[in-house]
């Protein structure tokens, strides 16, 4: 055990693998010292486990109707009560974690690389490329995100895939800004010149030498943005433009429960707690990550 730790914390790592594992170990250790980020990490871990294990964890089916037991208040049999079709809300919340996790992951996988690439190209080449790309980015940045997402979904048609695309379209500009700012800080540094002198193509410089250096600020930003992505997705579901029934998407579930909010409060309230919990988890983890990876900001929080 001790030797593994020494190997991980070695000041002069012998291989790239050892260096990156060591860095990962240091970050994890630093994160574990902050109770809030541990809490956030745990929440997200629970989300992932729930999403993977939904078929085994959920006591009932997400879509199976039981009209004899409709709108039952929370009880031992139905921890969060049942909805207007007698479906167990707890099970639906659990199945819904799959949808939330999918949305969040896909948006991150589309928007972050897109933003990274545009930002890095803009910062690396400078000149008119920079002006054009950042002009477009700025225009997108000064639009209201939610409204833009709504309009895109309206044009593409309701549905979970289109919701993901619409959210990704409104998220990338922030990442492009960050990637550009990071790229500018080391565009003229010696190691970039060294690679250029060896004859590396711009694509190679960007992909192999610039993008890896942008990742840590990108990870912080994406984690912090997750809460917003979850809220937007839930909002689209609530309005009826995101996931369609009978999918157990949390926002859509709240929307169904609206009709009963005055008498059967649990139908609309319970999925909301799931949204809040997961969003808070990402906020806590993001804050913790920022403190570890971006120490300049740490003293302020």
């Amino acid at each position, binding site marked *: 055990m001790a030797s593994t730790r020494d190997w991980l914390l070695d000041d002069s790592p012998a291989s790239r693998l050892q260096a990156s594992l060591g860095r990962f170990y240091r970050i994890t250790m630093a994160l574990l010292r902050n109770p809030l980020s541990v809490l956030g990490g745990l929440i997200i871990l629970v989300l992932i486990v729930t999403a993977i294990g939904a078929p085994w964890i959920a006591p009932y089916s997400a879509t199976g109707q039981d009209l004899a037991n409709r709108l039952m208040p929370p009880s031992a049999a139905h921890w969060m009560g049942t909805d207007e079709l007698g479906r167990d809300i707890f099970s639906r919340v659990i199945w819904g974690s799959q949808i939330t996790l999918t949305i969040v992951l896909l948006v991150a996988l589309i928007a972050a690389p897109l933003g990274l690439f545009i930002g890095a190209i803009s910062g690396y080449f400078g000149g008119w490329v920079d002006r054009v790309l950042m002009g477009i980015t700025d225009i997108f940045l000064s639009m209201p995100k939610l409204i833009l997402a*709504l309009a895109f979904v309206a044009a593409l048609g309701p549905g979970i895939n289109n919701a993901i695309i619409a959210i990704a379209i409104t998220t990338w500009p922030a990442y492009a*800004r960050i990637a550009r700012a990071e790229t500018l800080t080391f565009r003229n540094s010696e190691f970039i010149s060294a690679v250029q002198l060896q004859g590396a193509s711009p694509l190679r410089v960007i992909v192999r030498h610039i993008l890896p250096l942008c990742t840590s600020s990108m990870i912080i930003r994406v984690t912090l*943005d997750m809460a917003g992505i979850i809220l937007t997705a839930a909002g689209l579901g609530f309005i009826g433009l995101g996931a369609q029934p009978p999918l157990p998407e949390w926002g859509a579930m709240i929307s169904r429960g609206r009709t009963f909010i005055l008498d059967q409060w649990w139908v*609309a*309230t319970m999925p909301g707690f799931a949204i809040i919990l997961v969003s808070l988890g990402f906020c806590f983890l993001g804050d913790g990550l920022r403190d570890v990876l971006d120490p300049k900001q740490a003293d302020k929080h």
Partner: protein
Amino acid sequence: MTAAGERSPGGSVLFLKEDFERVSFEPQTEPVGASGATGTASALGRRRVLRGIGGVAGFLVTIALTFLGLLAITFFIGRVIPIDPVLAVVGDRATAEVYDAARVAMGLDQPLPVQFLNYVGDVLTGDLGRSVSTGRPVIEDLSRVFPATLEMATLGILIGVALGVPLGVTAASRQGSWTDQVIRVVGLLGYSVPAFWLGLVGLAIFYARLRWVGGPGRLDIFYDGLVPPVTGVILIDSLIAGDIDIFWNAVTHLVLPASVLGFFSLAYIARMTRSFMLDQLSQEYVTTARVKGVPERVVVWRHAFNPIRVPLITVIGLSYAGLLEGSVMIETVFSWPGIGNYLTTALLNADMNAVLGATLVIGAVFIFINKISDVLYRVLDPRAR
């Protein structure tokens, strides 16, 4: 600069926070004092005027380009919609001649750039098309519903500023204490609670259970339509009509949705205020003031608070713009007849003219407030001049 890197968890439903970093804390690109060594006083003054004019012109160009970008996006959205816009007008029973005539009348036979120019011209003359569901011109509908949104968002931002600024200052002056922790959690809740959910829960508790506030809508049904609309803002209209009963009824209906909106702006404003204040409180002049024996209250509220008023204006402006956007969700929950409700109804009816019109108006107001707070920042902060 203050708090250049306050990376708030962006992308929340309500606020475009990353915009804040961009708007005010990127180093200004204008060459400050570029004309130092050679010029006489008069030349300096002339150059300053020229630079001022250049700044204004640059600002106008930026605004124009941004609006053009907004128009391009709405135009694009209107084009990629899979439904045939001609069919939506003539119906699917129309003959080929009727269809073709309508297509020509709508200008859809022309190349895309020409169509875009026509579209820009239409929008500039206030022609946003006709709403399919209400049958009225979209611009008429929008001017009818906009005051309701404005009323709610304005009260919301007042609540947000009145509570958020003192909370942020308190948190910063007691950094690390449990007060600070509580305020921090409240701030984070502002980023993790869905606005529509909070509205629903608020309705269930304060309207259904406690009966403290009025329900959905702007007025009780039996008061509806009694006040002649002058400004469209019911609080003002009822006072003009001299009807105090209706005024108070409107207040009970307004207070809950405005408070929900206010909560979100409070969370954002408190977080930013705290971060600005921490920056100031660690400055040496604050230490000097403390050493001189200035009372702590004066140190916090005068020495440290005065310098952050300028960046706060930007924050408040952005938050206000965010509330106009955030009201989309809230209005649906409270059946508030504002622009958000109009937009969602149009979305569900695939009423594209209305959707694009509402998007344009909200986008334009948003951009406008954004840019104005940017300008205010530059005008008010002596270092940015």
